[in-house]
């Protein structure tokens, strides 16, 4: 088993890095060096662009000059087309790092008589490669030959010769081809190019388009086999393999406040982890955006930058609405700490929107990103795409230690503890806002479903929006169940009065006791006084008796002396 694993490493194919974000990861280091690679796909799926970027990156990053043989566009058109992607072909051409050559084939100008070969084309390619010492070559798209030259027998034989020639030349070649009905390409180019085949796809589902890339085949190398979404934007081509991100983002133990003191207390006293992902889900009107606004406000107050993606409301509307609960976020917008980005994702497609978000995040470099709500990424049945998109978004934020705060609308009939896109497993802290309907009124409740890595409160709190922001209150939990709102208030009042009467009773008892004690004390003192008075009298009498006794004895002695008594 070990041997089998080791072997491919030793005999690893030499590869040519494309420099295209993500593609090198999928292919395990780029395209096969010195061999042809076929890129096929429908019209407008980005074949030419991928090929061009391969050359441009080769020239700018790996010092490998490249030749672009264009069968469909002229040099000027090509230069103009890719200028919007930030490629300056004129500069590269001037530096002899790039050579563009248009191969003009016009069916109406060509007449076939007898045998011929494509030596002219080979000479041109050879000349172009040698003139700048090219290591990379693009043929875009060689299928045009089939349109210009009707004799396919000759053509196929010549193509075979061409690829043999190119392999001998040792250049890494990209050949593009239109996708055919049953074959990968219309003209069966895959027959000649058997080393590596990459398929591009541009699919429209529910009126939004997604671009995808798949490595169909890569001879002699392991490669990612999934379909990977990719984007084309101002910085060129980027493939975003879900798996490429890996799960090794650095984490911090730094905690940041949620903006609501009571909520921080529920989150073991300190709030969210910095760089974690927070989800608030709930049904309509439960105050998800208000929680987001609180968090944003608190972050700005700490001097952090907040990027707020409002997918369903305009920035002005959000600011106005939040002012009604006493949160003035406009000041932060004015001093540049907070930035709103309002756009419907369905307008430009999920993938493009993801790029847009990446771009804005890279530019603004926020500490906190709020997406309100993520549920609006779902249009129709694109759950999977939305999920993979959000997954990549979350990963991207985590990699950059940006705290992500997402809200998600739960449908009226769906379960509360269920996000529409099943992203709960990606989320670190998940709070649920719910309606509690008692006694003819709806009240908001909040509880923390989970919060990774901290001891959090397991209680439901009543969540009230006041003029001074959101507040969390204890709900009434008693024999009648959980009570909120006016039911809670009346229950509390009832309890209060009950308690009050109990208190009065006690008070009364206390008074009675005091009275008794006082009576007792009075009685004691009366008795004491009586006793004292009696004792004085008695003592007095005893004294008098004693005095009388003494007097009697003296009298007796005097009498005895006078009688000359002999006693004593």
């Amino acid at each position, binding site marked *: 088993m070990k041997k089998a694993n080791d072997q491919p490493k030793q005999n690893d194919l030499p590869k040519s890095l494309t420099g295209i974000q993500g593609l090198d990861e999928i292919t395990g280091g780029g395209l096969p060096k010195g061999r042809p690679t076929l890129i096929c796909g429908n019209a407008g799926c980005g074949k030419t662009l991928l090929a061009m970027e391969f050359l441009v990156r080769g020239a700018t990053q790996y010092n490998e000059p490249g030749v672009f043989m264009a069968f469909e566009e002229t040099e000027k058109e090509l230069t103009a087309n890719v200028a919007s992607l930030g490629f300056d072909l004129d500069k590269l051409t001037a530096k002899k790092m790039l050579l563009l050559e248009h191969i003009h084939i016009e069916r109406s100008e*060509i*007449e*076939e*008589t*007898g045998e011929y070969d494509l*030596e*002219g084309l080979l*000479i041109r390619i050879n*000349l172009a490669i040698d003139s700048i010492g090219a290591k990379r070559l693009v043929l875009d798209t060689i299928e045009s030959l089939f349109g210009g030259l009707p004799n396919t027998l000759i053509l196929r034989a010549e193509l075979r010769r061409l690829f043999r020639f190119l392999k001998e030349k040792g250049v890494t070649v990209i050949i593009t081809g239109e996708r055919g009905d049953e074959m990968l390409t219309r003209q069966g180019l895959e027959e000649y190019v058997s080393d590596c085949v990459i398929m591009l796809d541009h699919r429209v589902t529910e009126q939004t388009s997604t671009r995808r890339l798949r490595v169909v085949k890569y001879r002699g190398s392991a490669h990612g086999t999934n379909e990977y979404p990719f984007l084309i934007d101002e910085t060129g081509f980027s493939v975003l393999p879900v798996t490429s991100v890996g799960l090794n983002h650095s984490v911090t133990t730094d905690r940041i406040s949620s903006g609501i003191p009571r909520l921080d207390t529920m989150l073991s006293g300190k709030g969210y982890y910095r760089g974690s992902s927070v989800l608030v889900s709930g049904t309509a009107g439960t105050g998800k955006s208000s929680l987001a606004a609180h968090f944003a406000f608190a972050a700005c107050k700490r001097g952090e930058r907040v990027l707020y993606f409002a997918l369903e409301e305009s920035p002005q509307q959000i600011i106005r609405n939040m002012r009604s609960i006493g949160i003035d976020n406009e000041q932060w917008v004015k001093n540049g700490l907070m930035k709103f980005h309002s756009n419907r994702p369905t307008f430009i497609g999920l993938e493009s929107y993801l790029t847009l978000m990446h771009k804005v995040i890279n530019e603004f470099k926020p500490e906190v990103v709020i997406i309100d709500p993520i549920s609006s990424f779902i249009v129709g049945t694109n759950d999977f795409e939305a999920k993979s998109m959000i997954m990549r978004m979350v990963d991207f934020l985590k990699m950059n230690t940006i705290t992500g705060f997402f809200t998600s609308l739960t449908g009226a009939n769906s379960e509360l503890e269920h996000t529409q896109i099943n992203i709960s497993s990606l989320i670190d802290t998940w709070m649920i806002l719910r309606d509690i309907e008692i006694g003819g009124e709806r009240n908001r409740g909040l509880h923390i479903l989970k919060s990774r890595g901290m001891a959090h409160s397991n209680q439901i709190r009543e969540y009230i929006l006041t003029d001074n922001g959101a507040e969390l209150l204890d709900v009434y939990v008693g024999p009648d169940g959980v009570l909120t709102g006016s039911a809670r208030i009346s229950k509390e009042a009832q309890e209060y009065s009950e308690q009050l009467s109990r208190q009065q009773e006690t008070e009364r008892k206390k008074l009675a006791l005091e009275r008794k004690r006082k009576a007792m004390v009075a009685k004691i003192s009366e008795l004491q006084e009586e006793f004292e008075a009696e004792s004085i009298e008695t003592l007095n009498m005893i004294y008098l008796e004693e005095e009388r006794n003494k007097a009697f004895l003296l009298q007796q002695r005097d009498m005895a002396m006078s009688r000359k008594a002999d006693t004593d």
Partner: protein
Amino acid sequence: MKKKIKEIEYSTDQFESALGDSNSEKYILRLYIAGMTPKSIRAISNLKTICEDHLKGRYDLEVIDLYQNPQLATGEQIIAAPTLIKKLPLPLRRIIGDLSGTERLLVGLDLKKT
């Protein structure tokens, strides 16, 4: 072969009378070959025959070896060899192959209507 040439002569007469003025036009022809391969040799001899037969005295033919002048392949947008380019009279036309199909060659050179 002889029969074919006779056919050609016959048809040539037909189209020459139809063409009228254009008979006096000067032909500028360039034949690009890639080395002296059998194909190249065939192409040269085929072309010479046609020119002598139909354009005697009013054509300018140059045979160019692409191996000697590879940059011409780029400049002239050549992909196949041999390629005959009819520069004048307009329209510009490319005829590829060893020029063995005389009929098509004549059509390509606007010496015969299709």
